[in-house]
């Protein structure tokens, strides 16, 4: 019997506004507990919320890039439930009139394009964080995240595999980072995904009973959890049993999903319009203003890189992974570096240095103009590629421009023929054995002699010239 999975994803994105959704507290991470809090985000008696305009604009921007319709009229609602992380014991969210709805996102899976419907994107406020590690019989609550703006993005149940889910999440994260609306940091919880998973017989139009998978800390975790859950549900159904509708948590250590049966099974959220806030009316003018300010998105940028810079699809893809990297590349090219070598240096040596030092390209000490200058110096033959490979880490560590380091360390390439000729003669004289071998037809010996010459010049010799001159000297019959 063949089964297929039906998956829908709910992604919560913390928007990286300066201040919270409804108050002026900072949204910064890593502040000591309960130091970014005020009467509003603590839900103290007598307070009222006031909507952060930027959060609304970020929401509209995301709606636009997800091809959604932006609601001309939307409002905030109260979602009522009790939990210690919820300051007012209701969350200000959007119920029947979300900010954006009815969009889609195309993802690539195995070279095929799959369109995933976006049901809606709505604004709400984040909750506090609970700690259970304080010791004693208590849990601690830290309200620093309470009231941070959240955008909840819900897909249609269009996803059919863990792979598609993974592709969607990766692309969504990439797009959100490009927009600059979120830090998209899963470890900090600024991006969180929940999956609704069900399975049904292939061809069955009716949906199966779904489970909701929560508390997954990474996209690869989501991938594994969905794969596990599909297999689990298929085996339940194959045994003739039925799937229980419930919330399940992902246990990464055991690699399984676990039932989180809730005592308060009746979720009766008693939504009603938030009387403390007035509706949000978005006119065309506002939408167009936001649309005009949208950055070029990864897919478009990749295609432009292929045509404008004659890069391979692969290179263009790597360089457009993040907006910061794409911008770094383009600035390097704008500063005069030819595109292909610029791409190679960024994807190769520079990326390796970044990875090794766990840095982001946005905080790289090498200015794109300095990288461009280094590449130009190679192209002009002022320094050798080999020297450049040593030069780059120096630039990376110090942030100094290449010409300064080249002068300081006397790295300019030796291309003076008479000087190189005399060094070649000295190398041959000092290595009679290999010289004789070469003359006897063992051409491999040349490599050794070139190496010796490079050593004698501390690598500064123009390698092509050194090669030529050595051959010329060796062929001069003594």
């Amino acid at each position: 019997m063949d089964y297929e999975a039906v998956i829908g994803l709910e992604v919560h994105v913390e928007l990286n506004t300066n201040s919270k959704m409804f108050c002026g507290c900072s949204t910064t991470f890593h502040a000591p507990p309960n130091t970014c809090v005020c009467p509003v985000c603590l839900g103290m008696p007598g307070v009222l919320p006031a909507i952060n305009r930027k959060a609304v604009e970020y929401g509209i921007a995301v709606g636009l890039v997800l091809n959604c319709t932006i609601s001309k009229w939307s409002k905030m609602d109260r979602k009522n439930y009790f939990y210690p992380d919820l300051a007012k014991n209701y969350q200000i969210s959007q119920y029947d009139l979300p900010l954006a709805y009815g969009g889609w996102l195309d993802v690539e899976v195995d070279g095929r394009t799959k369109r995933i419907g976006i049901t809606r994107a709505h604004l709400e406020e984040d909750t506090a964080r609970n700690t259970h590690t304080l010791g004693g019989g208590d849990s601690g609550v830290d309200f620093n995240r309470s009231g941070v703006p959240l955008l909840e993005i819900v897909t249609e149940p269009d996803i059919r595999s863990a792979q598609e889910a993974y592709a969607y999440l990766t692309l969504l994260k990439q797009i959100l980072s490009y927009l600059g609306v979120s830090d998209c940091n899963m470890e900090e919880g600024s991006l969180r995904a929940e999956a609704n998973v069900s399975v049904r017989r292939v061809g069955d139009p009716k949906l199966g009973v779904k489970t909701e998978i929560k508390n997954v800390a990474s996209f690869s975790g989501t991938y594994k959890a969905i794969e596990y859950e599909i297999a689990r549900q298929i085996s339940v159904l194959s045994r003739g049993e039925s799937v229980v509708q419930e919330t399940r948590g992902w246990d990464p250590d055991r690699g399984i999903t676990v039932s989180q049966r809730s005592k308060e099974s009746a979720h009766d959220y008693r939504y009603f319009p938030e009387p403390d806030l007035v509706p949000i009316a978005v006119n065309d003018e506002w939408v167009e203003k936001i649309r005009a300010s949208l950055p070029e998105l990864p897919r478009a940028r990749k295609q432009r890189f292929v045509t404008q810079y004659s890069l391979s699809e692969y290179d263009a893809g790597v360089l457009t992974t993040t907006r910061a990297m794409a911008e770094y590349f383009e600035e390097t090219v704008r500063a005069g570096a030819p595109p292909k070598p610029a791409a190679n240096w960024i994807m190769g040596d520079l990326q390796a240095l970044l990875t090794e030092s766990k840095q982001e390209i946005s905080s790289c000490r090498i200015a794109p103009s300095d990288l461009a200058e280094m590449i130009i110096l190679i192209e002009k033959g002022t320094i050798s590629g080999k020297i450049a490979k040593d030069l780059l880490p120096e630039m990376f560590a110090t942030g100094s421009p290449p010409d300064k380091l080249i002068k300081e360390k006397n790295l300019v390439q030796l291309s003076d023929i008479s000087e190189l000729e005399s060094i070649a003669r000295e190398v041959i004289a000092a290595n009679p054995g290999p010289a004789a071998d070469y003359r006897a037809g063992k051409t491999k010996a040349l490599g050794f002699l070139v190496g010796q010459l490079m050593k004698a010049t501390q690598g500064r010799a123009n390698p092509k010239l050194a090669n030529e001159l050595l051959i010329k000297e060796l062929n001069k019959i003594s």
Partner: protein
Amino acid sequence: MAKEWFRLTAHEIRDAVLGGAVSAEEVTRSFLSRIEQVDSKVCAYVDVWRDAAISRAREIDARIRKEGFRGALAGVPISIKDVLCTKQGYTTCCSKILRGYRSPFDATVVERLWEAGAIFLGKTNMDEFAMGSSTENSAVQLTRNPWNLDYVPGGSSGGSAASVAADEAACSLGSDTGGSIRQPAACCGCVGLKPTYGRVSRYGLVAFASSLDQIGPFTKDVEDCALMLGTIAGRDPRDSTSVDLPVPDYCQALNKDIKGLRVGMPREYFTEALGGEVREKIEEAIRSLEKLGAEVVEVRLPHTEYAIAVYYIICTAEASANLARFDGVRYGYRSPRATDMRQMYHLSRSEGFGPEVRRRIILGTYVLSSGYYDAYYLKAQKVRSLIRQDFVKAFEMCDVIVTPTSPTPAFRIGEKTDDPLQMYLSDIYTISVNLAAIPGLSMPCGFTKGGLPVGLQLLGKHFDEMTLLRVADAYEKNRGFDIGHPPIN
């Protein structure tokens, strides 16, 4: 014998203080000794800020002397309903669940009065979380009507009304969700105003029903009412429902004639059901207005009979969410018996809230719960639209509407019916005003034979407090009796 400064109105005190006739400190001491003298009988205050008030008065005196300070309420002693957040003292809403709670901020209205030079005397008693119309639902104490100590002062702002009526404060601030300013003002014989929804910032008002709540003043006369409204009104960025309209000089409404002004009498309010002394007094007042040149016209408010049902659905629904935050996590009462999280919630809330509050939370939760939202909450919001439209249409025919504030004068303490529905029905004349979001003012229009004040209610168009005050002032100056001072014995 020292002059009885506590007998004066706010504008008289302000003029005396700014004119150098008396110091703010002397005025304040006069009020404090009045409180000492009568509050053990009236029980209007739940907290008196004696030392803070005196040092504040000295500060005002110094600023007048040194900086030439000319605040609109310079040296005026004011009491504050315990539903408004104040950094000074406690903010408890007269509930066990907030006993000992200290607010880290002042309500916007409190800030504005402070800037105008007011002196705060303390916090006044109220029905717990403003739910009630007699102040008997306070978890702290009973407040008595200064005109007859065996009677309630009305509610929920009973302490505020009693403090002004008993000359224990020149003015007071209260809140009005369904009549909680106007009804106690009527019971105690003072002027009480519920401004248009959005006219005054609600920031710092502990919410009962967010779409109905509004803060307003209790005063001894209409001029003080204009003075207080002008001080507290205006847009506040912290309240998104406060309106960005210019605040007129409400004192311009005073000493004007009302010739040709159309006064509407809603047919639905003057039915058989309204009888006795209240009807007599209201009709007398309407005749006074006619004598002043006003034209009395009949208007229709056809959806009046639905107002109470609509009101109790909306206010309880909103209250059920507004009061969810009292859970014993961040502030307020936590039951010492609670050992797990469920108990923390259930025991703290059940022990912390009084019976009327619990009843309204249950009702409000029910009307929002799954399967009932459309039948109750949505339906009520639709009928609310109709009620508002009634008023908009009525105001095409008239400039102000006159009604009784309450069908009866104050009742005896403990006499209130055990039937909550009967209690709710007595709010008939005040709640439509909150539903329609229009302004309403109550002022004394006489006394019953038993010596209890009767309240006349004037209703205006949205944001037309000017006309309301103009009519109220003209009536006050020509009503032919002096409200006087209660004997308190």
